């Protein structure tokens, strides 16, 4: 049996929309069984999609479907390359309808599209389940939405039944890759080592360019050729679950031991226990071996029995977030920016907790409580940008913060420029673990 190749066309909502075409072209030229995934659903992305669906029930799926899928749909269907993605977000059926419309528009016969559901716990029944498993301090908070992480099995079953596109909501990111591998090799759901190997292949692919030189380049230390045109990754997954990661042909970027190690450990906690709905993966003894130019093998991943519970992310209404910025430059700029900060503090501090940044002096490495900022000596920076941020349950208070930054135009220190203000609704979050039998996954074909 020829090995399965799985490519990644996107690694987050907002990723490049021209990355998938070279991946598909490479898969076609390789021949043999293949699939392409689009991972587009961060925790926050889904929570905001839930809010959007509430405003408009036809929405709440990933709008970038249009730009991501249209260019590759015909080729994927013609060459039997299934598309697997969580771009269904809060509305997989809405996404499926959109895909059917795109196919029709392209003059293609209606593709066989499956949706995976069961992850959404935002209705009254779901909220009731969640309420039993979240920590007591969250009880009574204004519930917004909840989704449970589902696994690869339903994706695999849909593919075995001929799905050309599988649209999911919340599934564990690596399950998007394990699904096609499971469909291809027919592993038992207790073949833990194979499941874990393909899961880690999925982990390497799930962030797109992050394994092919993206999020890696550091001039002089970690140089990446052709970063502007970095190719997106393709993993050839073997029957034992090990894989060789490469990238789309005739692209920039880089796959080497360093890029693979950085992505292998990305967002991992205990490397011996990477928990997914499908398996507990263990990379304690995994090996990363360069086997060719831009080709790296990952082997030696072990697997342990899958967890009895599934993780759910739960979101609550979190009030409003607001921020404002203003720049000062030239002689004595830092002192003027610090004076502006004191003005804002005097006028706003009674109303809400504030975070200040002096961009160019002390900013992102600092903490929200300002300990690092307070410990940063006053200097003589000549090009700095003051930022203030705060949150409040009441939108009007956040608007007042923005208004006070705006007023610095005329009432603040000399020479302030480039005021920008912004506000957005905020969601706060927690997670909990729910016995899997309470939240069964399912899939269905949609016309």
């Amino acid at each position, binding site marked *: 049996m020829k090995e399965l190749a799985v490519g990644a066309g996107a690694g987050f909502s907002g990723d490049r929309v021209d990355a998938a075409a070279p991946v598909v072209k490479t898969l076609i030229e390789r021949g043999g069984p293949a699939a392409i995934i689009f991972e587009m659903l961060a*925790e*926050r992305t889904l*929570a905001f999609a839930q809010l959007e669906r509430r405003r408009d029930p036809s929405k709440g799926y990933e709008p970038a479907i249009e730009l991501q899928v249209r260019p590759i749909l015909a080729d994927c269907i013609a060459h039997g390359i299934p598309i697997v993605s969580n771009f269904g977000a809060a509305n997989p059926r809405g996404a499926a309808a959109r895909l059917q419309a795109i196919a029709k528009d392209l003059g293609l016969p209606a593709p066989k599209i499956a949706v995976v559901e069961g992850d959404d716990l935002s209705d009254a029944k779901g909220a009731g389940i969640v309420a039993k498993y979240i920590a007591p301090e969250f009880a009574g908070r204004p519930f917004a939405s909840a989704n449970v992480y589902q696994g690869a099995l339903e994706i695999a079953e849909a593919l075995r039944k001929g799905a050309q596109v599988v649209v999911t909501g919340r599934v564990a990111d690596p399950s998007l890759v394990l699904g096609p591998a499971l469909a291809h090799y027919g592993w038992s759901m207790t073949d833990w080592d194979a499941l874990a190997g393909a899961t880690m292949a999925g982990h390497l692919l799930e962030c797109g360019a992050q394994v092919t030189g993206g*999020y*890696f380049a*550091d001039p002089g*230390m*970690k140089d990446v050729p052709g970063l502007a045109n970095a190719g997106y990754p393709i993993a050839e997954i073997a029957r034992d679950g090990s894989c060789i990661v490469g990238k789309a042909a005739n692209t920039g970027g880089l796959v080497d*031991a*360093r890029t693979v*190690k*950085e*992505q*292998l*450990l*990305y*967002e*991992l*906690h*205990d*490397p*011996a226990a990477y928990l997914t709905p499908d398996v507990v993966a263990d*990379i*304690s*003894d*995994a*090996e*990363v071996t360069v086997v060719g130019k831009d080709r790296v093998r990952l082997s*030696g991943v072990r697997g342990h029995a899958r967890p009895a519970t599934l993780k759910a992310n739960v*979101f609550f209404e*979190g009030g409003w*977030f607001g*921020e404002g910025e203003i720049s000062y430059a030239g002689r004595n700029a830092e002192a003027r920016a610090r004076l502006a900060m004191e003005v804002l503090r005097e006028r706003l501090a009674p109303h809400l907790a504030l*975070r200040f*940044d002096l*961009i160019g002096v002390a*900013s*992102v*490495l*600092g*903490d*929200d*409580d300002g*300990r*690092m900022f307070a*410990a940063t000596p006053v200097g003589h920076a000549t090009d700095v940008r003051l*930022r203030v*941020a*705060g*949150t409040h349950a009441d939108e009007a208070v956040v608007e007042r913060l923005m208004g006070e930054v705006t007023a610095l135009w005329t009432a603040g220190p000399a020479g302030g420029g480039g005021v920008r203000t912004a506000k957005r609704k*905020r*969601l*706060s*979050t*927690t*997670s909990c673990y729910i016995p899997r039998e309470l939240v069964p996954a399912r899939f269905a074909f949609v016309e």
Partner: protein
Amino acid sequence: MTAPSKIIPLYEIAHGRTGDKGDRSSISLIAYRPEHFAILVEQVTEERVAAHFAYRRPAKVTRYVLPRIHAMNFVLDGVLDGGVNDALNLDMHGKALAFHLLELQIAVPAP
């Protein structure tokens, strides 16, 4: 007699990447050269990393060692001001924290 050594930032011999889940940051630290891995293991301890991130008040720092890939993984609990949805930081994920870790000073044998 102690062998002569010089003090350098980790940056010169290791690379890494930050990830986040909720209020927890995970930072990988990977030796460029296998022969430097033992130096990392010996000197980049949980205690030193906790002290290096003191402003973030980590509730706990846990180190995991991966000798086969010459890497370590640090998990810092409670350092993201509530995490991506709650933090007021411009960098609400704490993406920049790996490069802060790489500023940690270590001693290497003098050439």
